[in-house]
């Protein structure tokens, strides 16, 4: 059995380096020495405020959201035994976006801040449930098609919400927001999303052993005592809570859930339970790296994070489709 411990250590080291680099990246140049002082002081100097109040929560959000997306992708792939399963492609992100858009533009978010993640979770839960129900038993193609249909429905309902929104700026704002970003976030966003991601993450990790059994086949898993309905519900809740809350804060960020598990799987023993934690770390590394890239690539206004991850992730998706065609019977 191949231990995933060295890979976890390597990913943690990489994450630490990127975390520090993330504190250096921004519109205002701050020397590394001042970055250290700003980290712990929370003081009144400009550099300290920028580090502590803007860049630090942004880096924490990138780690938390990247981890939740990577972990969700790993668990969804384990449950469906489908290499293309991930929150974005299964319509989970579209459902979460719809919930968040309704919360923002119909005044619920203004009444209580948790309305956005809460409706994001409700939207993600509904989308995941519909995708699973539609794609069940139809193999890879049916699941991806169900995800595309749910994404399409989510997109249409978002457009309808904007159409009916009382604010004239809604369409412009939300087009921008749907591109995904961690710019100008604060500790308030971290505190808003962290409890949900922790709960969702804990639920997803708890599915590891059942997913290991499921990798042998549904009948074998049931003979080993796995309650498949219970497992599906756990994955449904875990994914909806983790991805729904993450999307409500960062907008739509695609492909992290697809790429992260695939990147680390060759260095594991392929057991789903041994992929979940490394996939979470890989997701955090990928999203943090992507967020740094959006700040240092200057081609006009800041590149949106979701745009960047999609540009990087889509070739991977293409590669996987080609690979599936070669191996298809």
């Amino acid at each position, binding site marked *: 059995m191949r231990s995933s411990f060295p890979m976890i250590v390597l990913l943690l080291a990489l994450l630490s380096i990127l975390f520090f680099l993330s504190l250096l990246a921004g519109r*205002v140049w701050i020397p590394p020495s001042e970055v250290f002082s700003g980290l712990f002081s929370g003081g009144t100097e400009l550099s300290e405020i920028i580090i502590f109040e803007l860049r630090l929560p942004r880096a924490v959000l990138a780690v938390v959201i990247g981890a939740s997306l990577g972990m969700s992708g790993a668990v969804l792939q384990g449950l469906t035994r489908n290499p293309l399963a991930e929150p974005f492609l299964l319509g989970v992100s579209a459902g979460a976006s719809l919930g968040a858009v309704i919360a923002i*533009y119909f005044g619920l978010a203004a009444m209580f801040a948790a309305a956005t993640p809460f409706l994001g979770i409700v939207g993600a839960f509904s989308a995941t449930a519909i995708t699973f129900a539609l794609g069940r038993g139809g193999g890879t193609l049916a699941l991806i098609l169900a995800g595309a249909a749910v994404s399409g429905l989510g997109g249409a309902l978002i457009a309808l919400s904007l159409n009916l929104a009382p604010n004239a*700026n809604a369409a412009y*704002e*939300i087009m921008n927001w749907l591109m995904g970003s961690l710019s*100008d976030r604060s500790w308030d966003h971290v505190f808003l999303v962290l409890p949900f991601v922790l709960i969702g993450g804990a639920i997803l990790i708890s599915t590891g052993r059942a997913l290991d059994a499921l990798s042998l086949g549904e009948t074998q898993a049931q003979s080993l005592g796995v309650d498949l309905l219970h497992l599906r519900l756990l994955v449904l809740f875990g994914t909806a809570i983790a991805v729904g809350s993450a999307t409500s804060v960062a907008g739509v960020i695609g492909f992290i859930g697809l790429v992260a598990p695939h990147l680390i799987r060759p260095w594991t023993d392929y057991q789903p339970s041994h992929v979940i934690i490394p996939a979470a770390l890989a997701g955090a590394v990928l999203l943090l790296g992507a967020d740094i890239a959006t700040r240092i690539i200057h081609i*006009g206004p800041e590149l949106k994070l979701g745009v960047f991850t999609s540009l990087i992730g889509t070739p991977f998706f293409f590669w996987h489709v080609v690979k599936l065609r070669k191996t298809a019977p």
Partner: protein
Amino acid sequence: MFDVWRMISLVSGLLLMAAPSISQAQSPQRVMSLNMCTDQLILNLLPASRITSVTFLSHSSPNAALSALAAHVGINYGTAEEVLSQRPDLIVSGDTSTPTTRAILGHAGYELHEVPSADNFEEIREITRKLGQVLGEEIRAEEMIVRMEATLKELVETMPQKKIRVVAWDGGGFVPGRGLLFNEILSVAGGINIAAVDGNDYLVDFDLEELLQARPDLIAYASATLKAPALRTQALQHRIVRRFYEHRLITYADNLYVCGLPQSAEAAKDLRAAMAMVMESLEVLQ
């Protein structure tokens, strides 16, 4: 394949048949406005009895004075079909909005007056005078310009020595730079737009780090945005904004900053008063 030009020609033909004959010597009696900015001009230049319709935007405007004026006239959504049914003898529009309708109307020979956007007081004088001539309301247009000049003269004569550094930040990612009406109104009001530096023309990408670095005296926030829920209203809740700008925030009526009108001088006067009030309250706090 759907042939757009054939469709335009067909609709144009219908409009041509329906177009009333317009006597150049007579002032237009059924004026239709297809643009929110021209709505405001014609509502101030003409009695309601000579206005066929203005856009739905003016009917639901957050500017109470404008929506009150618009309430007495008809409504349109800027479509060619509405021109057919409302049969105006003059259509007033912007030079960028409703391009399809303008193309069809031009093709059909309708009397169409396009008003370019005005981004400074010189351009406001020009468009107001020109529209006054087209509507046969030169005297009314001159009266509006005279009032504007009087307000501008008063503002110049009472210009505070210390300029207030302002940015029109609303968390939307972009702020007005050089060449926009906001800049003109702010400078007449006695402020300096900190985003209007060399190379920053029109809208400028601006984030919270830059806001902190630039340290403006005040943040100007569009008031219409505050009236309906949006992401931008949440931007004011950011802890950086609350910590440093909670008492340094002024709101402005953004419709007067989008459309260059003689009333923009009044907007500058209101802005100066708002800036002075906040700066005085800051002095008291300190």
